[in-house]
């Protein structure tokens, strides 16, 4: 029963992915994707014929000279080899190369933010739940209310200004040579950590409070369940009740929100990366958007949606391990 559920989930995810690939291909083609449009209007003293030739050559170069249906098949064929197409940038670099170049830098930020947010957040949440109604709990409640009202970029700007420009604790602006000079040496890693401090901090504040609030609510909800009263009536020790009965059951909503945040890992924080001039996926997407670089945008979108589908699939599969009731709905 469990196995059929897992297999079903995997097939379902694959199906969704195929739908996403198709939509991702056709939606941009509703508008203007013609690479030749980049050369409009004709530059300098280019004659009509020269301009036509350049357009034809460009279309051929990007495979736009065949029917849309043929383009779709070619696109699928390319995807199966891991080819996301060519960017409209000068020199037509492969989209996948551009992404691979930027992705690690985004992951540096997003993974550290996630780990910090999750670990500290869950700890705060458990404390707030056990000290319900006391100052620790009130603090968390007020902090999360305030955080909802403050946009992330504002925190980033404030941190950049006060910790960066005024106090000069951390760089307010990422060193532009950081990426080029990176060579896995200890000093280089230290430089990355030093530069990443403020962007990570500005994202972690919200992440910590979000996870803390979620954990607190989950723990309190479980604490009020009847089976916790049973556990108390059994004379179990406080710690057994807390870890084996309460936390185990509170993990379910935490895993859900974790799955949601994993899907955001590679998207990059467009705004935060802009504020700190961090060359990650967010910046790459913005560049693609500003230059109408459709193949690059499509590549990033595809990667994003693929990762989201994967994250949801993993969340569902972890649920099977955590909650034995999950497969029941599938059976009936």
């Amino acid at each position, binding site marked *: 029963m469990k196995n059929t559920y897992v297999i079903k989930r995997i097939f379902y995810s694959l199906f969704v992915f195929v739908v996403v690939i198709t939509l991702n291909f056709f939606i941009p083609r509703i508008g203007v994707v013609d690479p030749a449009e980049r050369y409009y209007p004709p530059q300098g003293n280019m004659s009509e014929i020269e301009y036509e030739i350049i357009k034809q050559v460009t279309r051929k170069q990007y495979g736009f000279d065949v029917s849309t249906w043929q383009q779709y098949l070619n696109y699928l064929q390319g995807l199966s080899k891991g080819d996301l197409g060519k960017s409209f940038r000068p020199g037509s670099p492969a989209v996948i190369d551009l992404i691979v170049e930027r992705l690690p830098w985004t992951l540096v930020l997003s993974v550290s933010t996630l780990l910090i947010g999750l670990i500290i957040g869950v700890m705060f949440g458990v404390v707030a739940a056990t000290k319900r109604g006391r100052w620790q709990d009130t603090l968390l409640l007020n902090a999360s209310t305030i955080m909802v009202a403050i946009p992330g970029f504002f925190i980033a700007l404030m941190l950049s200004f006060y910790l960066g420009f005024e106090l000069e604790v951390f760089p307010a602006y990422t060193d532009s040579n950081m990426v080029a000079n990176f060579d896995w040496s200890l000093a280089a890693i230290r430089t990355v950590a030093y530069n990443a401090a403020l962007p990570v901090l500005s994202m972690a504040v919200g992440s910590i409070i979000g996870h803390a609030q979620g954990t607190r609510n989950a723990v309190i909800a479980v604490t009020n369940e*009847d*089976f916790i*009263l*049973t556990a108390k*009536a059994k*004379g*179990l020790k406080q710690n057994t009740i807390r870890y084996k009965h309460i936390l*185990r059951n509170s993990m379910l909503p935490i895993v859900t929100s974790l799955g949601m945040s994993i899907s955001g890992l590679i998207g990059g924080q467009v705004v935060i990366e802009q504020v700190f001039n961090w060359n990650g996926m967010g910046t790459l997407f913005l560049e693609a958007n500003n230059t109408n670089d459709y193949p690059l945008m499509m590549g990033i979108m595809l990667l994003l949606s693929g990762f989201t589908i994967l994250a949801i699939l993993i969340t569902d599969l972890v649920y099977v391990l*955590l909650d*034995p009731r999950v497969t029941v709905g599938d059976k009936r």
Partner: protein
Amino acid sequence: MKQVLKLRNLKVIFPTNYGIIRAVESVDLDIHERECVALVGESGCGKSVTSQSVMRLIDSPPAITRVDTLEFDGRDIKDYTPKQMQEIRGKEMGMIFQDALTSLNPVMTCGKQIDEMYIRHQGLSKEEAREHTVKALELVGLPEPRKRANSFPHELSGGMRQRVLLAMAFACLPKLLIADEPTTALDVTIQAQVLSMLRNMQRGCGTALLLVTHDLSVVSAIADTVYVMYAGKIVEKAPVRELFATPHHPYTVGLMSAVPRLSDTERVFTQIPGTVPHPTQKPSGCYFHPRCQYATAECKKEMPPLKTIDSNREVRCHHPLSIRGVSHA
């Protein structure tokens, strides 16, 4: 007979935003060895709070609990620390609850939840505990106990789950078992099975039973002594046969006549007029007087004391029924 539980003057108060809820007011309770005591009353009369207070399971805050005497098995556990209470709970005092599905941890196998009792209170290893668990499940009549021990609560039927709870509660042969509406969530046929199982286990293990229920048929089936509660106070206490033969309190009479009988030719339900008073706005005098057809001016003014009559019965009424010579239902 040895006394297992002696409770004197229990008061439980919940301060809320809407006013102070006096959930339990000066309740006395006596339970002897091997005795089955039933605590009867409508929803919200304080019977569950009373039973949980006996195990000191009511959290304070929010509740405020005061008790003069809470003697369990000859020991005064009124001032026991939480750690000391943990040693008593489960081992010497067990509890089973109404809804077996929500009373069992959904992500833990039933067997593991029973294992916990043996591991915690008898210091057994996991393997030894499982052997005991399988035996306990067999004893409560669960088919294929070894296989069922690995089932999760949602995979069992309601009756089976209640048996799992029974096996868990009797695991360490407690001196006192508190059963809070143990049959309410079950089908009538399963109710009878679980009740007879409860009765057999109780007799076999020599356990005293505090049965909390609103179901008078359950009471007549297994109780020895009955306490009737109304709005946080005990209104009548009597041995079960005498209570059913001659109820003294008008509320008890009302409860009994509200049970439809097969022999009734006219299909009319008798009900007690009015509703239970709101817990923050209890009436003056006797709490039952607004719903009592025999109420007098005295009843409106003064709360009657719990008077002993017929040597072994107690009733909280200015004008107890059979004494006044009124025929009852």
